[in-house]
């Protein structure tokens, strides 16, 4: 018991979890609205898309480096999925068909990222920044994408709630969309792949130390390429979930999501230098950030100060976990010295 507790203290996830609890209590104390069934459902809902994107950010950071192209891969592949669904008269097909079309294009775009990064060994940040810009140009320039309503199959999917709650006291309702199941499914798959398969361990190994990973028999290039292909697919799913939740396709709203997601993932303990990061951390970081961005009005913070507040939470959150991990490292070196 004591051992597991000590181990927990060393994880940055634990500190993020603490901040979440404290923050929730503050909101509850100030507004009395946090621990209501409709608010909790709302928070789960607003987490869905960012936490799918967070998987992209996590995989990229752990194996290679930053990937900032996922929002625009999501935007462009959702657009293609919607247009093709309508163009081929697939509006009557099950929703998953549209998702598969989107995922296919997402993987293609991810493959482009992966190809350039692996083949030419360019920094992933620059490559994905570049491809983002290209995808944006194609979407808004070449395709002239505008706001659209969804094809029938996605619209029906969007309008089928997974869960509907009603707050008996205030009479306010809230619904959890089906996309929540998609997110849960993706996290379960990611958990098994990352923790229980050789490929998954390879993703961590490659990011931790490329040379050792190669000596240990991992195919570094193939793993990195694979990560970016998967990222493209995940981004497409995230993008389609965004459209489903808004019940519209909104081409201009994707851009810019990457920064908050990356902040959330780092907040959750993922190292920018590679090799370290957990799914648990991803979820907690995303939860904290969506909680903060969606509770400032309830806290009564003036609009002019909301951005300052969000920035402060990101820095404080990261600092807390960074300080404790530095402390952990110091203790370790001291122990080593003493032992010597």
């Amino acid at each position, binding site marked *: 018991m004591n051992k597991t507790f000590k181990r927990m203290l060393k994880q940055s996830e634990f500190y993020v979890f603490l901040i979440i609890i404290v923050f929730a209590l503050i909101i509850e104390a100030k*507004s009395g*609205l946090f621990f*209501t069934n*409709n*608010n909790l459902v*709302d928070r789960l809902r*607003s987490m869905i898309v960012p936490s799918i994107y967070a998987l992209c950010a996590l995989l990229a950071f752990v194996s290679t480096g930053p990937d900032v192209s996922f929002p625009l891969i999501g935007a462009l592949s959702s657009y293609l999925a919607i247009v093709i669904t309508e163009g081929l008269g697939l509006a009557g097909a099950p929703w998953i068909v549209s998702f598969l079309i989107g995922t296919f294009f997402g993987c293609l775009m991810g493959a482009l990222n992966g190809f350039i990064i692996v083949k030419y060994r360019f920094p992933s940040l620059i490559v994905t920044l570049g491809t983002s810009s290209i995808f944006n140009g194609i979407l808004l*320039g070449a395709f*002239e994408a505008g*706001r659209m309503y969804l094809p029938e199959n996605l619209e029906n999917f969007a309008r089928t709630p997974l869960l509907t709650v*009603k707050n008996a006291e*205030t*009479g*306010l*309702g*809230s*619904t959890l969309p089906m996309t929540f199941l998609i997110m849960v499914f993706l996290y379960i798959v990611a958990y098994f792949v990352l923790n229980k398969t050789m490929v998954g361990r390879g993703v961590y190994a490659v990011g931790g130390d490329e040379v050792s990973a190669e000596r240990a028999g991992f195919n570094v290039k193939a793993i990195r390429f694979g990560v970016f292909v998967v990222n493209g697919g995940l981004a497409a799913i995230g993008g389609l979930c*965004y459209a489903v*939740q*808004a*019940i*519209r396709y*909104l081409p*201009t*709203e994707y851009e810019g999501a990457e920064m908050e997601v990356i902040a959330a993932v780092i907040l959750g303990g993922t190292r920018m230098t590679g090799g370290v990061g957990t799914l648990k951390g991803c979820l907690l970081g995303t939860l904290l950030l969506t909680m903060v*961005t*969606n*509770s400032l*009005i*309830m806290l*009564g913070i*003036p*609009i*002019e100060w909301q951005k300052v507040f969000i920035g402060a939470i990101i820095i404080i959150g990261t600092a807390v976990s960074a300080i404790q991990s530095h402390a952990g490292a110091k203790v370790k070196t001291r122990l080593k010295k003493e032992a010597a």
Partner: protein
Amino acid sequence: MKNLKKVMALLAVAAMTLSLAACGQEQTTVSSDDTAAEETTDAAETTEETTDAAEETTDAAASGDLFDLANYKSDKDESEWTIAVVTKDNTAAWFQRMEEGVNEFGEATGINVIQTGPANADAASQVQVIDDMIAQGVDALCVVPIDPGAIEASLQNAMEQGIVVVTHEASNQVNTLFDIEAFTAEDFGAAIMDALAADMGEEGKYAMMVAYTTSTTHMEYANAQYARQQEAYPNMELINDGAIPSAESEESIDTAYERAKEILNANPDLAGFTGVASTDCPGIAQAVEELGLNVKVVGVGTPNEFRPYVESGTISTIKLWDPKDAGYAMCQTAAMILRGEEVGEGANLVAPGYESVTLVEGDNRCLVGDADITITIDNIDDYDF
């Protein structure tokens, strides 16, 4: 080889001479105009036009005032005039609606009208389109700028050549004879508040959303709404002790939805909500419908985009101006200047809401109409844009 050099030299000389002539025309050296006229005697009509333009230019430059309307009176027959309307993006439903007004003007007056716009809605492409129109020798340019700053030089060039320039939605455009606005921000904000007050029975709490607190027009609308409510509807109350605005949508429907939900959670007794960016009301309406509340939503946006929510009754009123009337009013202004008629305070631009415009002098001369329109479930079918 030698020949090639000769040809090149000749070409260079020709280019220089031509550019000199072009400069000369702009700077109105009379002699160069004369030679130009002599050189092109075979094309009698075009020559006339060139000299006309040159004379007008001389006038404008001589009096040193590009903004003197008298310089722009045209001696040509009305049927020979061409008025070009340059929009931000001609494929957008908004500007297709404007084209209806422009064509209506053409039919009513017999003046040639063309409406065109850049292939991509960016400032550089719009400059290109304007320059093309100037080269085609149109008599008047009516422009809805994407970026007023980017087209100043082109518009100045047009005016120096005696082309009438009128703009819309560009109160800070310097090189324009008149900028046409549908209403002042104060009037429009007040009109939004009047509509909201009527829908919510003049009592209860309300909230307002803008895209960003840094977007000037949105904040002007928001402040005007609040001022109007303070003045006329004492039983209404803006949430958060009158903090303007209540939330930012950041030009995103999804953010508008999230913020609206938060506000509705914190204020379950809210009775009204306004949104002035086109992204605001769909997000607010989605939140209101999901929460199952009876909140009146009033805001700015296009009928087609808001139609589902108007039909379901969540968005009770859309406030807007009609691009069709704005297009008509722009062309009318241009035609009046070409005819040499008086344009200014109280001028009648014929289109509904622009029958007696107010002149506001700021960065430019602004003709402000009273042309806000109210769209509800009863008349939404009359508007298809």
